[in-house]
């Protein structure tokens, strides 16, 4: 017997019970859509964040923060530089204060970093990408200010210009700086967000000025270590951990990506399990529908067997009904997911998370419901197929 003949017999049965079949197709469609959305958004979430992370924290960098002693000295940085495979290391000093502008007082974070290292830190290749006007580097008392410091957050009006004086009060001390560059409103999250995270205002200044006017001790909140040989990243990370002051946090792009991937993977598994509940309900529906079908068509099973159909033939016909329902539901569900992928944009922090339908997402979203529904239909189908023809014909 050819496959097309099995298909024909299964299809005629579905046509007869079209109400139940349509209900089951809707169930499969919802389950497939839910699963593909969960997996597709998870995939997009992971891809977007990893790309952003890799753009922001260079793959060849290790960031060391904290420590029980409250920071890092030049001597600590010198230690890091001596680790084999380390290309360079530089410190990052920060403090918080308040600025007074025409729109009132505003909390601000001062960040002191070597101007040559600023593009790496902000995750750009050229400072012109993040500077709207003025100088691209802080120098002397000249500083770069974030967008929400030179633009009124409520009205959007410009409140500072290049050359404007800027008074910053840090504890009891006031320092007068000069705005030398205005930074753009950025979408970056990590390093970039230090300057542009929504609601936070940042001032980037030269370290020598910072340690002259802001802090008397050369103490860095973080050290960024650049690795020359990426294949030794793990080994260098271990050595940095060994020489770093106690309590330091050591972060590398690779380890963050790995941790983030694991987190998203766990999240996807969780969402997938939630979707599996939906698929389970659909599978139960298929089980129920097939059981009813087998009971209602017991005599038909007897006739088919009397006409020479084997138990396997009967099993295939009933199983195919579930597979046809699943296949139609899968095609509709994935088509809807494809259409949604063109429009779905979920704002998260400053990023837009879309719906990415990779081959693995499509494969998992189609094969899993197909397998579950076939399994659900197999049990009653097997029971129907194994009926004795005489008993089936006598069934009332």
């Amino acid at each position, binding site marked *: *017997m*050819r496959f097309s*003949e099995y298909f*024909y*017999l299964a299809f*005629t*049965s579905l*046509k*007869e019970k079209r109400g139940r079949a349509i209900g089951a197709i809707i169930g499969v469609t919802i389950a497939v859509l839910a699963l593909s959305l969960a997996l597709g958004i998870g995939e997009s979430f992971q891809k977007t964040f990893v790309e952003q992370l890799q753009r922001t924290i260079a793959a060849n960098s290790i960031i060391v923060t904290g420590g029980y002693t409250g920071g890092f000295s030049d001597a600590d940085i010198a230690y890091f530089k001596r680790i084999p495979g380390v290309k360079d290391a530089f410190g990052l000093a920060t403090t918080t204060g308040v600025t007074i502008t025409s729109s009132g007082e505003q909390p601000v974070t001062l960040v002191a970093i070597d101007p040559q290292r600023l593009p790496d830190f902000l995750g750009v290749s050229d400072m012109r990408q993040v500077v709207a006007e003025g100088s691209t580097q802080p120098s002397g008392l000249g500083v770069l200010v974030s967008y929400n410091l030179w633009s009124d957050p409520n009205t959007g009006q410009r409140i500072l210009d290049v050359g404007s004086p800027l008074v910053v009060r840090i504890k009891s001390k006031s320092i007068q700086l000069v705005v030398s560059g205005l930074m753009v409103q950025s979408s970056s999250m990590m390093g970039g967000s230090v300057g542009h995270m929504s609601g936070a205002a940042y001032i980037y200044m030269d370290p020598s000025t910072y340690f002259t006017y802001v802090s008397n001790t050369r103490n860095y909140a973080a050290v960024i270590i650049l690795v020359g040989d990426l294949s030794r990243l793990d080994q260098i990370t271990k050595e940095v951990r060994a020489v770093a002051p106690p309590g330091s946090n050591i972060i590398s792009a690779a380890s963050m990506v790995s941790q983030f991937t694991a987190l998203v993977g766990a999240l996807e598994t969780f969402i997938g399990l939630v979707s599996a509940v939906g698929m389970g309900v659909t599978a139960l529906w298929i089980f129920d529908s097939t059981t009813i079908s087998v009971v209602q068509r017991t*005599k*038909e099973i*007897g*006739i*088919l*067997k*009397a*006409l*020479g*159909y*084997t*138990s*396997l*033939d009967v099993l295939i016909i009933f199983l195919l009904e579930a597979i046809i329902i699943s296949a139609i539901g899968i095609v509709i569900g994935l088509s809807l997911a494809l259409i949604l992928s063109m429009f779905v944009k979920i704002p998260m922090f400053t990023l837009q998370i879309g719906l990415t339908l990779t081959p693995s997402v499509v494969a998992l979203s189609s094969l899993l419901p197909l397998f579950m529904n076939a399994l659900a239909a197999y049990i009653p189908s097997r029971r129907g197929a194994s009926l*004795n*023809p*005489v008993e089936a*014909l006598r069934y009332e």
Partner: protein
Amino acid sequence: MSEIIILEHVSKIYNSASGPVIAVNDVSMSVRQGEFFAIVGPSGSGKTTMLHLIGGLDRPTSGKIIVAGREISSLRSDESLSRYRNEIVGFVFQMFYLVPRLKVIENVELPLIKKGIPRDERRKMALEALRMVGLESAALKYPTQLSGGEQQRVAIARAIVGRPRILLADEPTGNLDARNSQVIMDVFRKLNQEYGITIVMVTHNLELIWYCDRVARMQSGSLVDIYTPDTYDQLIVSFVKKV
């Protein structure tokens, strides 16, 4: 005439909650090639079980059944029994058992689908079978659009479409009025006489025995006697006595 069906000491015992039930008890008989053979007897006499055993729908508890030179009582696999049912025998039941969602022609095509015959060829064969029972014009109707007699003729067309050597009919007129019963019996006679199909029919309607070459009478699972037209009167008398 050669013997196409041979039963040798065939018994069938069912296990029920109240103990074993002997449905067929040590029956030995034969049916000749091209014969119109009937099995009569009261309800529960084992005649339908006999038909199921000959048709390979059930297996005997003991004894030997040889059909068309093949010992079917030794067939064990689902595959070999199914092939036997598909190629050697055709069934007609009292309740017609047509598939209501399929058109008449699609119902008739069912055994041919199993045989793997291509669509065009099987459509031709199905139309020919319908023509043999005089229902070619009803090919595209659904079974529910037909009368009981017409539905039984469709069931006969389905039984003969695969050109089986034996037609097994279980109370084929049991659900029909006198006029339709006669139409069905005329169709059987035509199939038997013109196309040489061997027919084994189970019935409790003694009016039908006049269509048959020989009649076996069963009682409580046992074969009582086999009658020919010359002795049908004795058969009728024995039935009347029982009643």
